């Protein structure tokens, strides 16, 4: 019981990391997606290059670049801030790609109908495109949020006292690695499964309305 309580002390950190990074990614992903599909070639090219660079480098390396590189010498930052920047940036790029998938899935006839009805660009986006895009993006976004929850474990490498950090500490002090890491695995499962289940439920509910 004491071991479980000790581990659970890391859960708020893990959840905070995941939720903040996911929120940052969900918001910044939208303008990034727009840049990625922009009609302006320089903007589209710049976005494409940025996406390629961010996605080609492993998250752990990004974390070290930001914390040990930029964070030591250039701009002073806490380990948590470094995590937020790294995870937020990676989440923004991944969410942009998820949104882009949602956008591509919208039938071109929807745009034609909206334009024929004389809706302004903003209204086309707000009333026609965004609701359909977010609906298509919902299952992938939930999957990504779960991925982010698990990937936040690498924050332990720079001293964030989240779940894996606590497990590592316990394992080193109690020498019960299997038990500790087995238990922390169960905690990850206990959080991930309900998120996946809620996402499927919500998706099914929306799908029931709009599809036969």
């Amino acid at each position, binding site marked *: 019981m004491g071991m479980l309580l000790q581990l659970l002390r890391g859960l708020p950190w893990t959840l905070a990391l995941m939720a903040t990074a996911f929120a940052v990614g969900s918001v910044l992903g939208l303008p990034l997606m727009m840049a990625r599909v922009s009609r302006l070639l320089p903007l589209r090219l710049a976005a494409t290059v940025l996406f390629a660079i961010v996605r080609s480098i492993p998250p752990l390396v990004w974390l070290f670049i930001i914390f040990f590189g930029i964070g030591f010498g250039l701009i002073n930052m806490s380990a948590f801030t470094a995590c937020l920047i790294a995870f937020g940036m990676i989440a923004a790029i991944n969410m942009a790609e998820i949104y882009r998938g949602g956008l591509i899935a919208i039938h071109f006839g*929807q745009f034609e109908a909206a334009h*024929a009805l*004389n809706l302004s660009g903003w209204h086309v986006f707000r*009333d026609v495109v965004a609701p359909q895009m977010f609906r298509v993006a919902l299952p992938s976004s939930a999957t990504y949020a779960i991925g982010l929850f698990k990937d936040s474990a690498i924050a332990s490498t720079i001293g964030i006292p989240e779940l894996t950090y606590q497990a590592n500490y316990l394992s080193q002090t109690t020498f019960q690695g299997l038990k500790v890491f087995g238990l922390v695995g169960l905690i990850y499962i206990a959080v991930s499964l309900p998120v996946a289940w809620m996402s499927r439920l919500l998706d099914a509910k929306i799908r029931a309305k*709009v599809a*036969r």
Partner: protein
Amino acid sequence: MLDGAASGGPEPIGAQPAPGGAYAAVRPALSVQNVYKSFGTHVVLSDINLSIHTGEVLAIIGPSGSGKSTLLRCINFLEPPDRGIVTVGDVSVSGGVPVARRELWRLRQNLGMVFQSFNLFPHMNVLRNVSLAQERVLGRSRKEADEVSLQLLARVGLTDKAQQYPARCSGGQQQRIAIARALALDPKVMLFDEPTSSLDPELGFEVLVVMRKLVESGMTMIVVTHEMGFAENVSEHTMVMAEGVVVEYGPSREVMRNPQTERTKRFLRAVSER
């Protein structure tokens, strides 16, 4: 009425009375002047001219790939023409040059469009589909827009579907909702792009009944169609297109029963032998 039919050459749009003298020499409700459109090297529309008066119904028929749908899409600039002028009421917009957003808005304000695949917004219920543009474009309140929408849904016989989502409606019902949605903006001219082509005959019939009612109410309409019965019996004039040009134009009954060009004869023969 149409000028320059089959000639392919740019002739002026006149206001001479249509055969039968049904229309006075007044400004047309819609005119298309020398509209040309190509996709790469493929010419889709070659200097098309036509004009249609208020209350007139024009059917456009012809084989697939003849440019009928592209012509409709050029009229409301969903597909901007490479050159030519489209005039609806007192709004003229030229192709091939940058078009001011305001001009495009004014042009489309006068045009209602019904698509072959309905293109209803699947995430909104039927009432919202019909009300949305009224609020956003005409500035009507939600209540006002919903009242108008319910009247229009009654007109197309679908009041009971107001709270349903489009996916719960049949194809014919969806097309009738699409008609109500287009009518909600009080257009001067309705453009129909093969409105029954994706429907089975029974559901297509429901849509044709609504379209006939619209004709009786005096709506000006351009209908791209494969429904020869509709073209012959409901539209005053029929235009036959093939390979991007107008091959024949005239009073519908004459075009259908006594076609003058070999291309029209071949097309009508193919249709009747299906």
